[in-house]
């Protein structure tokens, strides 16, 4: 079983937007959940969520940390926007 990268999002108060606060590696989503809560514990978070990085679909970039799951084919939006 390979480790997966998970991105961590959190907000301090109800009504605020979730903010990307970091990432981690874990073997399973359940381990990632615990690691996220225990690693990013510098704030008293109102809400924290994790997302498997390979489930993030980049919209306008083909490079950078989230490019791994770039769509190919008809759904693809090429870098550079609408031109």
């Amino acid at each position, binding site marked *: *079983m390979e480790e997966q990268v998970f991105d961590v999002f959190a907000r301090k108060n109800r009504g605020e937007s979730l903010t990307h606060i970091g990432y981690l590696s874990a073997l399973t989503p359940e381990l990632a959940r615990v690691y996220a809560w225990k690693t990013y514990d510098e704030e008293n978070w109102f809400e924290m969520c994790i997302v498997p990085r390979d489930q993030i679909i980049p919209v306008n970039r083909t490079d950078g940390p989230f490019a791994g799951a770039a769509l190919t084919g008809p759904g693809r939006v090429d870098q550079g926007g609408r031109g």
Partner: protein
Amino acid sequence: MNVLDPGLPHHPEPARQAFRRLLLGMADTKRILGIRYSDWLLGAPSIEAGIAASSMAQDEWGHARLLYATLKDFGADPEALEHDRHENAYASWDPLDEPLPDWAWVTATMMVVDGGLSVALEGILEGAYEPLQGRMQKMLGEEEFHEALAEAWFTRLASSQGEGRVHLKSAVEAVLPATLSCLAPGDEAHAVLAEEGLFPGAEALRSRLAARLDPSLSHLGMSVPLEVALDEGWDSTRGRGPGHPGLEAVERARGDRNRALFVE
């Protein structure tokens, strides 16, 4: 019967002593467990696992401090309990007497010993001693993450076909019987607690531990035994088997080396 009063002043002395034994055993177990977890800040399978171990160590030390402070209501001096006791007086559960040799052992300890402590916390929470209820809720909230980590690693190691599974099974076989004895001894002091409605009886506690652990233990073809005979040499004063945690751990728990330098 007024159970709102700290220290159970309206209960018979044997019940007060038995409740004191229960709290001290849990406090000492959490303190030594914290030390055993802290050893794995470095050397865990990943940086994230090490951080989680370190965080759990902090949780356990915080819980221990709360429980030691509670013992003041039972006539004890928390300062003396934390810093001035001989290792023979420690009532921590037997499986923590020695350092945890590998991550499989850490996983078995998280699952069985830490899980057993949570069953004990739940037992106190539902008992008649109300002064502790709020603190127990907070501790159990933190323990949810210990349980999630234990289950994830347990499943991971148990489903492997290699050395990890063999080590995990050996560790569970080593820690489970003594954990059951310490959690649910069913001796005279325990019977008094159950009669007074302060803590569940032995059968109920063993069943609860089984309900908690058996889904995971089944991956190893194991289950929690519902009958356990106390070891010869059972120490009814401390509520544990003979022996004590290693001196090195007790010295760290007491803060021996540096306390002499920095504390008046």
